[in-house]
């Protein structure tokens, strides 16, 4: 855990008994009938067709997606401020004000582009998807999905290829966790460090790599999952600090590709419609495509990046357009084939 958050978490844990109470007013969900508590929300869309106007939604505001905490100087001052805030907060009364429920339906097409944070996409971590597979039926054979060679990949090639490779290796860490493979998780922790060194972000990742190894030793798999997520954020934070946003995106993309390849392997092994539906991620593919298209020519012209960009365009029509679209077993295999090919390219020696 980040020191600042850890400090705050400690404070919050201590005051949790006081702070755990929530609002008291209750209303019914229009469709499910489920109760909800608190003062909920005003019927914003009913009165807000106007408020989704650009002036209300985007202009003049700053929109930020933070990946962890970025300001080092702030971190030094914040614990004290947070401590004071927390102490004061513990005595706050519960909400008594209530609002009418939100509308049961809104017209998504009427949302102006300015109201969407389309550039601020949070990419799911592999464990978010793997967890569903575990719930769908018999536990998948994660060991057969693992790629032992991943733990030994070298930092060869240009930085863009190494960034993609780092994402792939971190995703491999999530698979090793599913397989509860302590040795492989530890190997991956070391490989993450090696690749981070080549990208000049070793310092920021060192602590995370150690935490991965420590948690693996204790077989604290949930702890390893959290540390892998934090590693992704530490890498991206550090890269953004180095003005390497594009490399940061490539780390995310590498992770997404390996996660997708693993998902297709599990679903192909034991096909279910619900399992295949997990591949329906058009929004994420569009996001990566857009990011790749916007990259500097120097990065885009790297043969590995070019091939990945082409592969993403091949995957896009296969995952369906409408939510709930059935993805056939044949399509799952086809997506898997493309993803596998891209992973091989990413892990190949520099062209």
């Amino acid at each position, binding site marked *: 855990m980040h020191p600042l958050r850890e400090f705050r978490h400690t404070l*919050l844990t201590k005051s949790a008994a006081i*702070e755990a109470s929530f609002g008291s007013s209750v209303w019914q969900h229009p469709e499910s009938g489920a109760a909800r508590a608190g003062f909920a929300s005003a019927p914003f869309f009913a009165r807000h067709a106007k408020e989704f106007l650009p002036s209300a939604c985007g202009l003049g505001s700053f929109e930020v997606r933070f990946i962890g905490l970025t300001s080092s100087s702030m971190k030094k001052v914040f614990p004290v401020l947070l401590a004071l805030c927390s102490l004061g907060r513990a005595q706050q009364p519960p909400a008594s004000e209530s609002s009418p429920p939100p509308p049961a339906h809104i017209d998504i097409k009427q949302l102006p582009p300015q109201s969407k944070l389309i550039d601020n996409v949070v990419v799911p971590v592999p464990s978010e998807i793997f967890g569903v597979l575990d719930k769908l039926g018999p536990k998948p054979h994660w060991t057969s999905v693992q790629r032992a060679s991943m733990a030994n990949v070298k930092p060869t090639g240009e930085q863009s290829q190494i960034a993609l490779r780092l994402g792939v290796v971190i995703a491999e860490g999530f698979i090793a966790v599913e397989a509860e493979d302590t040795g492989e998780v530890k190997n991956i922790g070391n490989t993450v460090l090696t690749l981070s060194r080549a990208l000049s972000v070793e310092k920021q990742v060192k602590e995370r790599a150690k935490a991965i190894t420590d948690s693996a030793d204790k077989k604290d798999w949930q702890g390893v999952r959290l540390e892998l997520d934090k590693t992704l954020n530490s890498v991206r934070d550090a890269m953004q600090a180095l003005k390497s946003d594009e490399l940061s995106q490539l780390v995310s993309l590498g992770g997404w590709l390996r996660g997708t390849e693993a998902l297709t392997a599990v679903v192909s092994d034991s096909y279910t419609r619900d399992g295949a539906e997990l591949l329906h991620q058009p929004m994420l593919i569009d996001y990566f495509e857009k990011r790749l298209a916007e990259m500097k020519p120097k990065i885009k012209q790297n043969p590995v990046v070019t091939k990945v960009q082409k592969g993403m365009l091949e995957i896009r029509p296969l995952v369906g357009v409408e939510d709930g679209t059935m993805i056939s077993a044949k399509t799952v295999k086809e997506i898997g084939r493309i993803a596998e090919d891209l992973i091989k390219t990413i892990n190949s020696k520099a062209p």
Partner: protein
Amino acid sequence: MSRRLLFVKRILFTAILALGLAAQTALATIDDALSFALEAADPYVKEGFTVREDYWGGDLAVKSTKAIVHQLFKGNEYWFWMGTDLKDAKISIHIYDSEGNLAEVEAWAKPHFAAARVVPKKTGSYYLIVEVEKSPEERTTWSLAYGFR
């Protein structure tokens, strides 16, 4: 000439310092908003929710909204926690599916916090609508974190 240069340098230095301080303040309030969002998440972590490290943040005028498109997976259960550093602000978060239907099964709000829970019926894109309903300030800083199980 050199005195004029010195004057310009001082003006530039002051402007850069002011900008730096303003940026620091903005970051500070978003971090504080995030700390509230994570505080709201805390009880749910004990119920088995995994809180993501990634999050969204920004600032909004009163009675204005922002839509965030986010990928959700059928089979998971999600909580979205919104926080603000302004105690007297009233904020809300609601979740709609790709067809514009209210998708959340539960939501609550109280000073500093708002949250919504969704159990997706389909895997796909969902719209997270965050709103500042009222606030003593012209613009209200917010942050949104999420967790799944």
